[in-house]
C-alpha cells in the first residue's frame, strides 16, 4: 500500500497547492476534509496537533503538508507531500512571472489581487475555525483560542510568544485537574 499512500499524497496536496490562495493558511479546512474525513488517515485532534507543530517550526506555512506527509509515511512522505504542495503553484508562478515580462499585466494583476484578497481572508478565518474545532480542547481550549486571537490582533508580538503562553496555561489548568 506504500505506493497508494504516496500517490494519494501527490494527488491531495498537488490539487490543494493550486487552491492555496494566500498560502496554506487558507486550506486547513480542505486538508482536514480530505485527510481526516475522507481518507481517515488520522483523527481530528491529531490533525490539530500536527497543525500546531507546523505553526511552531520556522519557514513558509506550506509545511502543514510536510508534517501530514511525515505522519502518514515518514521522511519519504514528508518529501513527497512537500514536493506536491510546492510544485504546481511554483510552476504557475514561474509561468506568470515569465508571461508578465512580455505582456504588461499590471491591470490584470491588480484586479486578480482585488478579487482574491477578500476570499483568502475569509478562507483564513475558516481555517482558524476548523482548527479550533479539531483541537477538541473543551471550553478552556476555546478560551485559549480566543485569548490568542485577541493578542495576535492587537499586538505585533512574535506569534511564538502567545503560543507558548497558551500551551503553558492549558497544561497548568490540566495539571490542576480542571480539564
Amino acid at each position, binding site marked *: 500500500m506504500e505506493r497508494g499512500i504516496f500517490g494519494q499524497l501527490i494527488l491531495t496536496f498537488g490539487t490543494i497547492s493550486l*487552491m*492555496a*490562495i494566500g498560502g*496554506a*493558511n487558507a486550506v486547513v*479546512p*480542505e486538508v482536514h476534509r480530505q485527510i481526516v474525513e475522507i481518507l481517515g488517515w488520522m483523527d481530528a*485532534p491529531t490533525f*490539530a*496537533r500536527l497543525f*500546531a*507543530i507546523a*505553526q*511552531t*517550526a*520556522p*519557514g*513558509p506555512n*506550506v509545511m502543514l503538508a510536510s*508534517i501530514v506527509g511525515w505522519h502518514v509515511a515518514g*521522511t519519504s512522505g*514528508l518529501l513527497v507531500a512537500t514536493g506536491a504542495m*510546492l510544485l504546481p*503553484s511554483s510552476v504557475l*508562478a*514561474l509561468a506568470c*512571472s515569465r508571461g508578465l515580462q512580455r505582456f504588461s499585466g499590471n491591470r490584470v*494583476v*491588480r*484586479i486578480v*489581487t482585488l478579487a*482574491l484578497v*477578500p476570499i483568502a481572508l*475569509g478562507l*483564513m*478565518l*475558516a*481555517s*482558524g*475555525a476548523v*482548527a*479550533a474545532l479539531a*483541537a477538541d*480542547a473543551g471550553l478552556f481550549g476555546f478560551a*485559549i483560542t480566543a*485569548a*490568542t*486571537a485577541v493578542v*495576535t490582533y492587537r499586538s505585533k508580538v*512574535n*506569534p*511564538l510568544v*502567545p503560543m507558548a503562553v*497558551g*500551551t*503553558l*496555561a*492549558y*497544561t497548568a489548568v490540566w495539571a490542576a485537574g480542571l*480539564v
Partner: protein
Amino acid sequence: MNALETAASASRPSLPNLFTGFLKIGLMGFGGVGPVARHIIVAERNWLDDRAYAELMGLCQALPGANTVNAAVMLGDRFRGAAGALTCVFALMAMPLLSLVAIANLYEAVSDHPLAQVALTGAAASAAGLILGTAARLLAKADLARWAWVMAAAAFLAVGVLRLPMLPSLLVLVPVGLVAASLGARRV
C-alpha cells in the same frame, strides 16, 4: 520595462548568493517569514528596491501558494533562470524542513506521555487563535469595499461553516470575485 526588470538588469546575484540569502530567510523565519524576507531581499542584499519588492509581493499575492515560496521562484528565475528558481526554493525550504523533522521526532518520542498530549492540545488551541487573530488583523487593515466583505463572508461560510469542498467553492467564489473586482475597479 517594469521596476522588477530594471533591478534585475542592474545587478545579477550569483547562485551561491541567492542560496545563502534564502537559506537565511528560511532559518530566521520563526513565526512568519514575511518581514525577514523583506529585510534580506531589500535591505541586506539589495536585490530589489522597495518599489520592486512591493510589485513582486503584489504578484505573489495574486497567485496560489505561500508568498515567500512564490517570491523565491520568481526572483531566482529573473536572476538565474530555472536553476535559480530551484536554488532559491531549495534554500528556503531546507532549514525549516530539517527543524520540522527534529520537532516531529521529538513529538513522536514523547507522544505516549499524557502531559505531551495535553501540551499539544493547548498548542493546537493557540495555533487556531493565531490564525483567527492574523486574519482579523488583515481584514481590519485591508480597507475592503462592501462587495469584498460579502466575498470574505461567503468564503468563510462555504468552507468554514458549511464545510463545503474547496474546489467547487472556489470555482464559484473566484469568478464572482473577479467580476465584482473589475466592476469595482472601473468605478474608482
